[in-house]
């Protein structure tokens, strides 16, 4: 007899942050691509509109990033992000083997979700890199482009704006790649839509045998 056990994993503040962040970053990616590959012959959207939307959602995402940081500080959510370097390699290998092999053999996941463990090691590493490297990097370089007087004019031979812009675009691209993988991995599981429901209503269903 299996019955469904619900655990509350995504508190309201986290869901609000996540919604703003997800929507904001989707807009940032679309408008960012529009600007980067702007072409008079093929217009995805008006350039001026793209610039304005990009600026507004960039600011929204930056502000909501502080919600994420403060929320994590104040609640116990940050404990899910704690990473032990020791044994990390083995744990990551286990998870990768599961995703590429075990999952097709109907094996059970090596790091099942529980109240104590929201993320498997791969998720943890990915979220840490994205939330503490990519997103802050994007925010800082984005501010630099919005207020060019803040950044160094020249770094050796190179123009400061040029470097900042390249870094910004590269981080934006990597974040887009993360998003694609993030969306796909979230659909893994018995019911592909379950995780998406969780990030909306907060509850995660586990099957107890």
């Amino acid at each position, binding site marked *: 007899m299996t019955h469904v056990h619900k655990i509350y994993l995504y508190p309201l503040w986290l869901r609000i942050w996540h919604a703003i962040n997800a929507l904001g970053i989707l807009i940032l990616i679309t408008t960012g691509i529009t600007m*980067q590959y702007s072409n008079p012959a093929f*217009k995805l959207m008006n*350039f*001026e509109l793209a*610039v304005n939307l990009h600026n507004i959602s960039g600011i929204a995402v930056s502000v909501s990033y502080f919600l994420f940081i403060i929320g994590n500080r104040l609640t116990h959510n940050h404990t899910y992000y704690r990473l032990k370097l020791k044994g990390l390699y083995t744990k990551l290998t286990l998870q990768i083997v599961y995703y590429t092999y075990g999952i097709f053999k109907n094996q059970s996941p090596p790091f099942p979700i529980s109240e104590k463990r929201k993320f498997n090691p791969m998720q943890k590493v990915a979220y840490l890199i994205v939330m503490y490297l990519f997103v802050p990097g994007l925010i800082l370089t984005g501010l630099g482009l919005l207020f*060019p007087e803040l950044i160094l004019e020249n770094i050796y*031979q*190179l*123009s400061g704006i040029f470097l900042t812009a390249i870094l910004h675009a590269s981080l934006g*691209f990597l974040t887009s790649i993360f998003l694609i993988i993030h969306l796909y991995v979230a659909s893994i599981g018995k019911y592909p839509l379950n995780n998406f429901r969780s990030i909306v209503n907060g509850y995660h269903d586990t099957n107890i045998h």
Partner: protein
Amino acid sequence: MRSSLLSLVILFQFCFVQTLPAQEKQIAPENDQCIKCHTHQTITFENTLTKREDKRLMNPLYILDKNHFAQGVHGRFKCTDCHPAEYSHYPHKAELKLEPLSTCLDCHGGDARYASFQFEKIDEEFQKSVHFQKSGESFTCSKCHDQHYYQAKSRNSTEVGDIVLFSNQMCMSCHSNNNKFQLISDSLKPALAQIHEWLPNQELHFKNIRCIECHTQVVDSLSVSHNIMPKEKALKNCVECHSKNSMLEASLYKYKNLQGRSQKGKLHTIIANKAYVIGAYQNNLLNSVSIILFLVVLTGILIHLIARIVKK
């Protein structure tokens, strides 16, 4: 004896080294007769009536900048090459005011030495511009090109910022200065910041693009287009600059890029460029790397998805 000789040598060297750079850009010595008054706040002259030395205030609008003059294209000229020689007397004779001065075309028109500047073609284009159409002959070349200070920046400077500043100051000398604006027009100058409110990062733009980039039609055979069009025809389309085949390549960065490319190769010009224009600097290497990475990720996901469906 020895040491005094040595110090003499050092002194000589010192003078030599000190004066060498200055000598290159020095104005004609004859000009002393004018600049003794025209670079100072006050003038002293012999009052022929009272037979006394008089000291008076100089008209501040007639004070020239000597160094600035020396750096201009006509820096080696004598003042009296252009102005009547009678100016050497003071008080200047009233009729001197009335004598017309040479225009650019008077001296440069039809002169093969300046063929590369295409003065005649510039004149032709200028006559089509709104300035000439609305104000006619009273809008002379000198209204933009101060004959005392003009430098051929757009071809001699390698700094985009420098070129832009110099060029935009010509326009700003009227468009942000009502006194000079009203030499031509009876109305007040429109406020530039307000007219261009639609342009984001306005200050950054005005530092990196010339007014003429948006306000003239680019003529390929001319390095600087002179046909300033009515405001309705001004460039408002961001993508004209912010795209790969940017018009900036054809105008502002033309000389710089052509020079740079032949000297240091294309990559260097792109990397060392002082301005980064979103959309216009697409790096081919980064583009290919990102497309490949993107495809790899998508293929991985697709394979995984198919395996998931098959094994269900």
